[in-house]
Every structure is written in structure tokens, then in C-alpha cells.
């Protein structure tokens, strides 16, 4: 959708149409991605992967490989695991150790067993084929229900169980509500294993400088605490690892956390004394790259009254995280902050179980577990409506938190900053022309076609905080997830913002330049934004959890305000007046009521940089300011019953989808797609809309096409783009986005975060639409993805009179 040239919020730059600063280098082929980094003398890595889901490694014969021309080294798990430490794990499960190369046993098909270093990737691959590994297979478990049973094969026998994390939270009088409610339903909703699968795979290059003792790293990374974890695993001090954040990342949406890849390549670079690079091929990315997503079933129970008032929820969620755990169990923790959706439900029971099987490990995926949870909740809402024969939209209106209830605290402890959910839903319905949509559906049905409408309403928790860590692991007292910005004004008067992370398409250079321009009243086009490396960086927790508009935007604003105050103080000193007597305009400072009595930007900058004698006593010379910001509302510890404020800001979205399903082929076609979205003040509307379009497309994939399927013997059956189906321009329809703005009271400009929009409510709305289409047949599907085959089977079963 087109964006107004002028800010709709009354700002100079914020909210107005502005091209992204990053685009010119990308459209001209001048991006700098990790695979573009060619270090002099660089060597390349290829991997040997396990063919078995579970096996003991009996012997690794590397002789033939080492004898090949161009081969420098073969690294096995035996050497690597002795020389490095196990990767960090989020929950309290110290026996669930994990290295980049298997230590003695393999726990999933595709797990890396050995690494070859050679002059070229091709030679390394040739050599990897000549490495002979002898295995003794062991029992494995793939199905999560089987993995829960007593006597199931244990993925990590030392841990004593396949359960990584389990707790039952009860917030509010749940049993009482279930006893008193007029109606109850129960059902299972299942979210299939998919992920974000960026078009760029993960890659990392490393170079050890024996002279300085610094390991330099370039990587396609999006990960908090990445330099610290790399250093720790390599047994190096933190200041011996220098991560260069000026690497363009070709998409991530959560998953680009190649910590194991990095430790492996870092070790090799240091050991061999040569630069080493590893870039995953597609199969390595999808199988051994450890970047698959949530794989989860929900046993849902809802208690409600005849008038549609929902009294309580019981949610049992079992998430199969695969063979190892990093932060993946926390993907059951973040949804605690939106555990009853956008609804005023007074009592909730939540029983999350994080479970291991012999599959590829799970990594963070867009929304960090929230989209699956939203899918289960929104299926519940539609099922309640069907049970009561009540209109789905009316039921939502009845239970949505009302705008006068903000700030609103949900039973699990998070207080929501602001919102007007009814207004956004109404805007989406109006934009979709709801009555016309209903007519179109009913006409289609009368003509014998299958058509359905889906609605979902859900939250997009934003401002990414990690409070789920202290909730899920009391041994970790991590209560800050700060972010920072450094602003410099050089002698020429040019403004530079320094940020402390790499970006994967979120437009952080555009964000920071716009914010600095707004506060300093300077044209953002002239503001440069550069990236520190991890040794020069201020504290950051990377762009995860829809946090950067809030956290980096807030940090940039804080630093810019200091610069502005500094300029005013310099002027006050030179005019021998109080700062209150002055006003700041376009970077110049003048006496109030006397615009001719002023010091210009250039004059003030010159004083700061050169004329110490004109600076107020005690002021630092030069002109720079840093600001490190704690997540607003963050810092608390959970109550004993597990109530805690998790994220600060809560965006909202409402989806309306119209689907038609071909009766004979079961092929679904999305004929209309509308998203109503409120993330407060949008700093750059094009960037917000862009991520929302992308989120919708990703949600279409999760709902209808994408699945990491496993055979019974534990082999990944969808490791290419010919069987793991990413929606193309032919599957993704035109999408209409309708904006609404409820400013957050917690942030500088009223912004909330966004970046997960579209994905958070998309699968839920599409599932509701498909189920609406199937309803006349008496068929229902509560398992994602709803593949053509699954829909066809549902239709066929209904014809036979045996609904699945």
C-alpha cells in the first residue's frame, strides 16, 4: 500500500514515506553477505553427516581423505569435543550437552560427525566422501507421543528422560471456572514442523591473528550473546572474539543462530592458523544446520457460558525440539505473555512440555512460539462459536479486551500497554467487505463449490525481552535485555549512528537515521549508520522478538537527545543564559523570541570539537553520546506461581481470509486476504508493511505447504525445495493491510515493535477459513500444514461418511 509523503502523526520524518537506506546497495548487487567475504588464503569446510537417527560411532577412518590433494585437515568429534566446551543451554538440563561434531554417538540423521578443511569447497566435499565412519545403530524415537512413554529410547540417557522442561502453571481460579461454566469443549490442535528457511543459508568465516590473539568472525548471524557464547565454548576470554556486524544477512526471521557452526569454524581457523569459511549447502541448512522450528501439539480445553463469555482455558502444549536444546524450550515460554490471546479470560492453566526426539534440533522461528499458540487459541475460539452456533466475529468482539481496560493485566502477569482491538477488527472487516464476502461464500456453496472465510485476532508481543528465561530457569537471573546506540557528530557536522548488530532485512539503518533525524531535526538522508564490531560495540541483544523499533529506536532517541541537550548547554554557556531561555530549531540554537540571537549547528559543532575555552566547565570535548536502554517494564523476577511481565509493548492484528477449495484436487486458493494491524506509531510504514506482507506469506507456508517430514526410521524426507514447499508468487495472493495507531505510552514516539506481524495470525485465520469451507461436509482439520493431500483426505472421508 502507498504511504503518505507527510507523517500522519505530525512528526517531521517519522511515519512519512522514506526509502530504505539499505536498498541501493542491494539492488545493484553490492551487498556484502558472508559468502562474498573472501579472505586471502581462505580454506573451505565440508562435513560428514550421520546417515542414522541414533547410533554409536565405532570408528572414523580419515586416512584416504587426508591423502587427497588440497586437503589440509580432518577434524573429528573426539578432538573437537575435548578441546571446546559444550554449547550453552537455556533450561536447567546440564547433561544435555551439545557440540558441533558428535561426541561418540549421533542423535539424528544429518548430525555432523567430521569436518574436512581443503583448498576449495569442491575438494573438501570430494574428501568428505572418502571418510569412512563405522556406526552401530541404536534405538531411536521420532514420534513425540512415543517419546513421552516410559521405556522409550532416551535421546540423552544421562539426562534420564526425554523431557527437557515441564511445568504446570495455574493462573486464576481455573477449576472453579470449569466447574461453573455452562459449556466446555476439548480438542487437539497440531502445528507441523516448519521453519523460516531463509534463501541465504547460514555461513561463517573466521580468521585467527596469532599476533593480537584475536579471532575475527564474519557470519550471517541474528543471535543475542553470540560473541560471548562463541568465546566461552572456545575457552577464550570474551575480548579475544571479534564479531564483525557489517555483514549483510540474507534473511533470518529468527533462525540464523549458527553458534555451533561458528565454534567449529573458529576452532579450525585457530588450530590451522589460516582463514576458514563454511557456508551451508541447502541440505546442510535444512537438516544438520539445526534450524527447524516448533513441532507442537496442544490439548485445548475451554470453559464458557451460553452467551459466549469465555471463563477459562486449559492448554497442554508438547513441543518436540529434536535431539538437542539451545534456546528452543523457551519457545514455549514467550507465549506466556499472550497465553489467552487478545481476550479478557480471567483464568488459565498452561502446561508446557519441551520434549526431545531423534530429529534435527529446533531453533527460534519468527514469533518465538507465539504463532503456534495463536493457532491453537484461534481454533478454540472458532470451535466455541460453532458449539454455541454463535457468530465468530461476535464471539470475538464479546471477549476481546476493551480499549478502556488498558493498561490491562492478564492472568500470567503481563500488563498490556495499550490497544483498541475492536477498532482494528472492524477496520479489517470493513476493508474485506464482510457482507460481500459472506455472500460470495454462500453463492459459491450454492453452486456446489467449497468456500470458507477465516478470521483471527491475535497479539504481537514486541520490544523483545527475555523474561521467559527467568521463568523457565530460576538458576538464570537474567533480567536485562538492553540495547544501545552511539551517536557521533564529526567536525564537518555530519551525524553518524553506530549500532551493535547485523541486520537481516529489517532496515535498521533506515530506522536509526530517521530517529536521529527526527530528534536532531537534521535530514535523515545525510545521517550515516554504521555497525560496530563486538569489541567496540555497546551492549545489544540483537534484533529478535520484534524489538528494534522499541529498543534500538529508543536507544537512538536517547543518545540524540543527549546531543541536543549538549548543544543547548554550549549555547547557554556562550549566551550566558539558562538553557530554558533557548530553543532548538533545525540543529541551531537561539534565544526564545530572538531568532537572530543564535548559534548555528556548524558553530556549535566547531566549539565542541575545537574551542574548549567556549565549552561549559567540565563538559567533555568532542560531540558524541551513547545511550543504553533497559527494556521498559523489564527487570522483574517471576512470582512463585509464575506470573511475570515478559514483553513491554503489545501490537495487535486481525486477519480476514477468503478461501476456495477445488473439490476434485483439494487445492486451496486464497481469494482475499486482509490484515488489520496496530503497532502504534510506525517509524517507517513501508518497512512495517513489508514485514507484514512477508509474515503473511510465511504464514501461508506454515498453514498449507511447509513441513519437515520424517520417515519412521528418522530420515528427513523434505530436505530440498522440491519437497519442502515455500510459497511462490503464485500461491501468495495480493494482501490488503489496514493500519490503525494506538500509541504505546512506554516509548519515545508511541511506537511498538513489529516484524512478526502477518505470521502470528495468518496460519490461524487460514485454518479457520479452510475449516469453514469444509464445515458443510462435516469435515474438520486441526493439523498444520493442511496440505492438498490432508484436505483431499478430509473431503474423501466425509464423502464416505467417516470423517477423520
Amino acid at each position, binding site marked *: 500500500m502507498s504511504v503518505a509523503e507527510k507523517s500522519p502523526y505530525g512528526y517531521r520524518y517519522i511515519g512519512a514515506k522514506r526509502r530504505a537506506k539499505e536498498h*541501493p546497495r542491494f539492488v*545493484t548487487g553490492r551487498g556484502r553477505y558472508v559468502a562474498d567475504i573472501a579472505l586471502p588464503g581462505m580454506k573451505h569446510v565440508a562435513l560428514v553427516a550421520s546417515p542414522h537417527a541414533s547410533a554409536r560411532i565405532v570408528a572414523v577412518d580419515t586416512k584416504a581423505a587426508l591423502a587427497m590433494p588440497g586437503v589440509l585437515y580432518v577434524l573429528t568429534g573426539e578432538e573437537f569435543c575435548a578441546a571446546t566446551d559444550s554449547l550453552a543451554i537455556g533450561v536447567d538440563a546440564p547433561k544435555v550437552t551439545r557440540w558441533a561434531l558428535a561426541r561418540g554417538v549421533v542423535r539424528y540423521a544429518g548430525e555432523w560427525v567430521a569436518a574436512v578443511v581443503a583448498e576449495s569447497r569442491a575438494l573438501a566435499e570430494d574428501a568428505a566422501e572418502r571418510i569412512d565412519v563405522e556406526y552401530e545403530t541404536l534405538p531411536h524415537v521420532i514420534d513425540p507421543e512415543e517419546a513421552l512413554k516410559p521405556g522409550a529410547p532416551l535421546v540423552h540417557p544421562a539426562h534420564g528422560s526425554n523431557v527437557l522442561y515441564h511445568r504446570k502453571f495455574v493462573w486464576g481460579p481455573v477449576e472453579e471456572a470449569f466447574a461453573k461454566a455452562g459449556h466446555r469443549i476439548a480438542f487437539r490442535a497440531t502445528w507441523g514442523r516448519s521453519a523460516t528457511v531463509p534463501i541465504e543459508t547460514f555461513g561463517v568465516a573466521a580468521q585467527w591473528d596469532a599476533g593480537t590473539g584475536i579471532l575475527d568472525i564474519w557470519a550471517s548471524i541474528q543471535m543475542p550473546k553470540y560473541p560471548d557464547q562463541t568465546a566461552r565454548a572456545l575457552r577464550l576470554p570474551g575480548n579475544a572474539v571479534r564479531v564483525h556486524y557489517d555483514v549483510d544477512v540474507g534473511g533470518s526471521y529468527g533462525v540464523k543462530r549458527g553458534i555451533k557452526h561458528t565454534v567449529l569454524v573458529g576452532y579450525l581457523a585457530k588450530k590451522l592458523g589460516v582463514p576458514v569459511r563454511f557456508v551451508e549447502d541447502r541440505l546442510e541448512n535444512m537438516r544438520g544446520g539445526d534450524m527447524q522450528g516448533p513441532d507442537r501439539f496442544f490439548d485445548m480445553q475451554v470453559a464458557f457460558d451460553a452467551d459466549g463469555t469465555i471463563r477459562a482455558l486449559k492448554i497442554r502444549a508438547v513441543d518436540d525440539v529434536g535431539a538437542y536444546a539451545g534456546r528452543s524450550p523457551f519457545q514455549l515460554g514467550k507465549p506466556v505473555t499472550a497465553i489467552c490471546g487478545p481476550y479478557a479470560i480471567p483464568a488459565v492453566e498452561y502446561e508446557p512440555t519441551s520434549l526431545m526426539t531423534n530429529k534435527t534440533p529446533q531453533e527460534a522461528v519468527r514469533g518465538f512460539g507465539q504463532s503456534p499458540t495463536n493457532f491453537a487459541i484461534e481454533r478454540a475460539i472458532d470451535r466455541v462459536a460453532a458449539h454455541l452456533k454463535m457468530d465468530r466475529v461476535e464471539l470475538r468482539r464479546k471477549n476481546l479486551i476493551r480499549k478502556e481496560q488498558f493498561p490491562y493485566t492478564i492472568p500470567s502477569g503481563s500488563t498490556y500497554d495499550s490497544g483498541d482491538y475492536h477498532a482494528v477488527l472492524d477496520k479489517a472487516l470493513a476493508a474485506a467487505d464482510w457482507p460481500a464476502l459472506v455472500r460470495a461464500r454462500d453463492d459459491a456453496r450454492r453452486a456446489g463449490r467449497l468456500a470458507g472465510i477465516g478470521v483471527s485476532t491475535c497479539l504481537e508481543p514486541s520490544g523483545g525481552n527475555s523474561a521467559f528465561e527467568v521463568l523457565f530457569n530460576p538458576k538464570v537471573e537474567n533480567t536485562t535485555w538492553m540495547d544501545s546506540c552511539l551517536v557521533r557528530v564529526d567536525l564537518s557536522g555530519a551525524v553518524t549512528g553506530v549500532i551493535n548488530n547485523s541486520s537481516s532485512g529489517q532496515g535498521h539503518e533506515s530506522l536509526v537515521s530517521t530517529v536521529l533525524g527526527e530528534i536532531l531535526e537534521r535530514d535523515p538522508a545525510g545521517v550515516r549508520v554504521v555497525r560496530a564490531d563486538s569489541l567496540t560495540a555497546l551492549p545489544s541483544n540483537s534484533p529478535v522478538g520484534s524489538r528494534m523499533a522499541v529498543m534500538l529506536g529508543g536507544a537512538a532517541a536517547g543518545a540524540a537527545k543527549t546531543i541536543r541537550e549538549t548543544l543547548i548547554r554550549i549555547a547557554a554557556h556562550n549566551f550566558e543564559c539558562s538553557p530554558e531561555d533557548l530553543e532548538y530549531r533545525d540543529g541551531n540554537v537561539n534565544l526564545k523570541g530572538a531568532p537572530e540571537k543564535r548559534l548555528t549547528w556548524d558553530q556549535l559543532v566547531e566549539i565542541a570539537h575545537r574551542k574548549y575555552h567556549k565549552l561549559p566547565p567540565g563538559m567533555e570535548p568532542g560531540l558524541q553520546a551513547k545511550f543504553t536502554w533497559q527494556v521498559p517494564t523489564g527487570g522483574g523476577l517471576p512470582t512463585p506461581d509464575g506470573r511475570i511481565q515478559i514483553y513491554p509493548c503489545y501490537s495487535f492484528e486481525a486477519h480476514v481470509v477468503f478461501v476456495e477449495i477445488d473439490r476434485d484436487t483439494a487445492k486451496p486458493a486464497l481469494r482475499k486476504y486482509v490484515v488489520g494491524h496496530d503497532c502504534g506509531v510506525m517509524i517507517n510504514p513501508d518497512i512495517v508493511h513489508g514485514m507484514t506482507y512477508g509474515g503473511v506469506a510465511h504464514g501461508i507456508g506454515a498453514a498449507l505447504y511447509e513441513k519437515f517430514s520424517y520417515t519412521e526410521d528418522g530420515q528427513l524426507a523434505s530436505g530440498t525445495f522440491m519437497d519442502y514447499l515455500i510459497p511462490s508468487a503464485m500461491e501468495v495472493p495480493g494482501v490488503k493491510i489496514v493500519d490503525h495507531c494506538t500509541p504505546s505510552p512506554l516509548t519515545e514516539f508511541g511506537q511498538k515493535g513489529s516484524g512478526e506481524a502477518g505470521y502470528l495470525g495468518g496460519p490461524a485465520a487460514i485454518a479457520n477459513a479452510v475449516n469453514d469451507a469444509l464445515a458443510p461436509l462435516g469435515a474438520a482439520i486441526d493439523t498444520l500444514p493442511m496440505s492438498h493431500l490432508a484436505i483431499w483426505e478430509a473431503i474423501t472421508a466425509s464423502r464416505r461418511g467417516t470423517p477423520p
Partner: protein
Amino acid sequence: MSGTLHSISVEVNGVRREARVPARLSLVDWLRDELRLTGTHVGCEHGVCGACSVMLDGEPVRSCLMYAVQAHGHRVTTVEGLAKADGSMSVLQDSFCETHGLQCGYCTPGMLIAAQALLDANPDPGEEQIRDAIGGNLCRCTGYQPIVDAVKLAAERMRGAK
């Protein structure tokens, strides 16, 4: 075997390039690693994602599915060759910037190649034709809508300039 080298002569972005390459070297690896034209990206190496698209004699092809030796005697255009003669952005490149037709930029070179090939053949494509033309190029960021908008805008602007 990979040891044997073959002479090739390819016109890349208007410049004649001569090289001796092993038979198994893919076209994309030659462009990226030997010629350092790193604007062309590798996404899947099995011909599905379209990130490595280049034009071969004006037609979009997957440079991951071609060997460098197969390009011998042909004309290759990469994203680096799309800019105007003075080095400034082409109408299509500029239109992608205008409609926010990209985010991470990784699929973008392939998208530009596919879209430019369409516009070269059809100056007034409809939405369906645009979607068809980029249907073999996967993007995970944009949901395609802003890319479709960019191609429409570029077509309009190019027609207006004539």
C-alpha cells in the same frame, strides 16, 4: 576429472572474459569466485529458488544448474550489468527501492533478472504475467506484493519515458 581445464570465452556484462576452467565448475561459482561478481547469489543449488538467475543471451537461466563451460560463446548479464551506462540505477532497480520491493536483498538480484527479462519482452505486463514471470523466484521477506508493485511501476515509467 576436475584436473582438466577447458578454455571458455564468455561476454559478461558487455566485457569479453576468457578463462580456463574445470568442467565441473558451475556458472555461478565462476561468476562469483573467479570474476568476483558477487551480486548473483546462491540459494539452493538445485534450481528451485531462482536467487542465482542471470540472463543468458537475454533469457533468464539458473546459473547454479549450468556449468561455466556451457556459457562458452554466449552472452551473460548479471545484476551488476543492469545499471545504466553511467552506473546509476536502472528504472527497474529504482522502482524496487521506491516500492520497498526488497528487505534482506538476497533474492533481489534474481528477481531483478526475472523482471527485467519480462519487461524486455513485454512493456505492459498485467499482474498475472508479472507473478508468472517471478513465479520461479522465491522470496521469504516481501510476500511478493511489493515486488509486483515494483515491476508495475517500472513498466509504467519505462512506457512513459518512450
